[in-house]
């Protein structure tokens, strides 16, 4: 497969990002994404609604929390209910009745998470379905095709139809993903293959005017491989870049260095999407390193285990200590859960036989993440981001100097000191 960028891909991709402010010390930026389903302020945290639903909460609730972009997953939706049905349902937006933006992941990550069910070749990823044992081949073309089909107005025959619903606003290339704990030649193979697959995705993409195809930088934890990937992929004029292959089992020290390397070589006028991040501390540090977009299942998943996110970490509400605590999860939080319910009530619900607590906690945890990003953004716009970082670390760790070493190092590398 030829690795050179094609003429088509060198043509100007839409500039979807507008920078509003930049931190004068670190690489943090505040901006706006101009997407088909509306503007999104960055930095942004995108909740994950894998199977066309945000675990237990309605789209109305999600909208009320201020969410303007969330994730769907191509692999899962491709199996159930399948792209044909979603097309008939007026695209993914119509199917789940979400009026704002959607980003669909390509299915690449499932290669790692479902590794026992998958096999990678140059052609694509062969998956054995856990539901019916059937085999599917997810190739770059197939992945893009599914993501294109999640748009109702697309079909090969009706290419001339007036554009109605535009489908997922951001789609991801299919990448060859290896776990960050893997070393050796497989990492290099995956990196070069990802570049080739990017070109195949670009060639197969039928809706560049309506759906923004992002590249995903690979290269594992090897600086040279990553640098090569960055150099090659930035030759392709895609609307945005994701930093992939991280947020697995690697050490935080290696993690931040790869993020910093990536942002230093990515164009300033395009969004940087750090996949699979995450924890509050990680979000703040990676904003400082120059990332704009994040996604992670952590806040919604941890909610379902009874854990509520707060500026000091988290509250394990099942614990007896909350039995008679009649305050809200967070007195500063404006979410419906904190407006209406006490820790004691949630504690009692968690020990009952219904799922009510999980819904309340999911709402709160999403609110926490979104409010955090909003506060980060405001501090960048108001030119006080470094102070914000210090205050944040102070609240989280008791004292800014007690912040974990990797975070201190990462922040120092971009000019923010915590002492």
């Amino acid at each position, binding site marked *: 497969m030829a690795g050179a960028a094609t003429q088509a891909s060198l043509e100007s991709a839409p500039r979807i990002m507008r920078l509003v402010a930049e931190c004068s010390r670190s690489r943090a930026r505040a901006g706006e994404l101009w997407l088909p389903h509306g503007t999104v302020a960055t930095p942004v945290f995108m909740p994950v609604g894998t199977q066309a639903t945000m675990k237990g*909460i309605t789209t109305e609730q999600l909208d009320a929390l201020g969410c303007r972009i969330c994730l769907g997953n191509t692999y899962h939706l491709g199996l159930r209910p399948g792209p044909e049905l979603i097309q008939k349902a007026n695209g993914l937006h119509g199917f789940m009745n979400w009026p704002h933006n959607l980003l669909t992941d390509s299915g690449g990550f499932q290669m790692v998470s479902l590794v026992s069910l998958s096999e990678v070749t140059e052609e694509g990823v062969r998956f054995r379905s856990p539901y019916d044992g059937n085999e599917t081949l997810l190739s770059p073309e197939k992945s893009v095709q599914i993501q294109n089909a999640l748009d109702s107005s697309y079909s090969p025959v009706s290419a001339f139809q007036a554009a109605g619903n535009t489908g997922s606003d951001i789609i991801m290339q299919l990448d060859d993903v290896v776990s960050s704990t893997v070393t050796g030649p497989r990492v290099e193979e995956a990196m070069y293959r990802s570049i080739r697959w990017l070109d195949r995705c670009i060639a197969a993409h039928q809706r560049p005017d309506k759906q923004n195809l992002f590249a995903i930088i690979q290269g594992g934890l090897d600086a040279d491989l990553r640098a090569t990937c960055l150099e090659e992929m930035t030759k392709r004029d895609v609307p945005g870049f994701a930093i992939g292959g991280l947020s697995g089992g690697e050490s935080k020290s290696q993690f931040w260095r790869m993020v910093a390397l990536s942002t230093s070589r990515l164009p300033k006028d395009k969004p940087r999407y750090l996949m699979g991040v995450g924890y509050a501390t990680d979000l703040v540090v990676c904003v400082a390193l120059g990332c704009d977009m994040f996604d992670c299942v952590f806040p919604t998943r941890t909610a379902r285990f009874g854990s509520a996110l707060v500026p000091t970490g988290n509250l394990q509400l099942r614990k007896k200590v909350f039995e008679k605590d009649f305050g809200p999860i967070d007195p500063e939080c404006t979410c419906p859960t904190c407006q209406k319910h006490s820790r004691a009530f949630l504690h009692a619900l968690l020990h009952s036989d219904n799922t009510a607590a999980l819904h309340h906690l999911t709402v709160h945890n999403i609110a926490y993440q979104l409010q955090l990003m909003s506060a980060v953004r405001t501090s960048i716009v108001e030119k006080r981001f470094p102070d914000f970082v210090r205050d944040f670390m102070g609240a989280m760790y008791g004292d800014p100097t007690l912040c974990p070493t990797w975070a201190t190092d990462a922040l120092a590398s971009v000019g923010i000191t915590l002492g």
Partner: protein
Amino acid sequence: MVCWQSVSVWSVAGRVEMTVSKFMAIQKALQPDWFQCLSDGEVSCKEATSIKRVRKSVDRSLLFLDNCLRLQEESEVLQKSVIIGVIEGGDVMEERLRSARETAKRPVGGFLLDGFQGNPTTLEARLRLLSSVTAELPEDKPRLISGVSRPDEVLECIERGVDLFESFFPYQVTERGCALTFSFDYQPNPEETLLQQNGTQEEIKCMDQIKKIETTGCNQEITSFEINLKEKKYQEDFNPLVRGCSCYCCKNHTRAYIHHLLVTNELLAGVLLMMHNFEHYFGFFHYIREALKSDKLAQLKELIHRQAS
């Protein structure tokens, strides 16, 4: 397990021996608007009960009631709460009448008819008992019944003087992944009737046999008042659950989407179905009240009966 001092129940915390004083202490903490009095309803849980045992259940329940009333009088915090007296007596007419008359003598705010729960056939057998019991009760106090929630059973009980019901039926429907679709508009416009009829014909055709569904450990049969959203035929059905329903689910989502949520075991399925099932069920009760006001209960009953399996 019941004795003269207490009713024992088994909870996650083990056995709880509920004496009158413990029971009333809980009421003082909860400060409910109404509360059902402690009673001996064990008779309805057992198959063959002797008249002696039935008699005891009535006597004990009256004793509990008198003790609760006394404690309520002595408690300032419970002055605003209303006690609902419980009518026991199993399937023995004589005891039922005694329980009703004696309970009615006490200063209770209303009456709960216990022991009528079961399946549709057991209720049918008890309908005469029910009429006789409510005939003994004052007109100006509400009558509640426990364990009856199906639309057809609800109407039978209303005809016999019952005012309040539990809404566990829509909850059970939700738990088995179903949506209530039965019609209760006994005076629809002709166009709507035609559309509904065509719709119902389809549903009935496909319901050759009643399927047993296992939900949370109990076997519950799907009734003809509902549709099973897990069925493959809803996979591409982009209609709302019920056309014209103004609940959040019907205004925002389709049968196909609910089907998808159920197939993928997503939490949102139950959320959306519960919203619809409650709205539908409460809509039914609104029509019952309208029918009673305009003396059209017979029409409503006929409509419901046509849809009962």
